[in-house]
């Protein structure tokens, strides 16, 4: 089983929203910069991996009930975006990995956890 904590380690990631439960299981993933596609295709409880950092990412995420947001490519959302995520209990993990690298690492850890 891959937890949020395990995923964060695999990504050399940093939790931008402190004091959140990192024992949540990650079993579904969705990578996109298009919130339109997130709204159309994501399954609730997924991890959303994205390079977008605006407030609409958090609003879309809370609406479709994602388990956590992973922000790739070393980007940092503004304070107000992080505050909104904390308010709605959506963890944000930042990683320096590119989208491809992040997906590849997470996929590797996920498969390893299932073996």
């Amino acid at each position, binding site marked *: 089983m891959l937890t949020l904590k395990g995923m964060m380690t695999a990504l050399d990631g940093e939790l931008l929203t402190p004091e959140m439960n990192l024992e949540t299981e990650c079993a579904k993933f969705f990578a996109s*910069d*298009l*919130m*339109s*596609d*997130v*709204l*159309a295709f994501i399954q*609730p409880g997924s991890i959303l991996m994205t390079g*977008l950092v*605006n407030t*609409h*990412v958090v*609003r*879309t995420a*809370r*609406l*479709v*009930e994602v388990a956590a947001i992973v922000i790739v490519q070393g980007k940092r959302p503004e304070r107000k975006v992080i505050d909104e995520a904390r308010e709605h209990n959506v963890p944000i993990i930042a990683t320096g990995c590119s989208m491809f690298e992040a997906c590849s690492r997470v996929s590797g850890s996920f498969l390893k956890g299932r073996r």
Partner: protein
Amino acid sequence: MTKDTVFRQEFPVKGGDFSRAGEVSWEIKNLLKELGLSTPVVLRAAIASYEAELNIIMYAWEGRLVLSVTPGRVHVVVEDSGPGIEDIELAMTEGYSTATLEMRELGFGAGMGLANIKKNTDAFLITSEVGRGTRLELTFLTNGQRP
């Protein structure tokens, strides 16, 4: 509004105001949750409402969502004053979009909106008049059965 309506509320939406995008559909989602509807129905209604709210913000001058709930159904009527849609069939095509660069930079305007609204509803009606506005009628069955 029929006599068995258990709940009805109107939510105004201002065109062009991206800063408040998502507030109305968030409120609708929470209201439906409080009414005790099942999670899949709440999610479908929330997603369709969010897309509709965004469409008003992106394309119309002003509009509103009217939520009404009866024992078996959730209705969301979306009305806007705006440019209207010339070719509804084309607008419903996945991937077709007239979004501006600003909308796309925010992550929207990928041409999925109307098709995704329809996908999430149990009944979907759209009418539009060019130069005046667009009206959507969205119905969700609360028993979660898809027709």
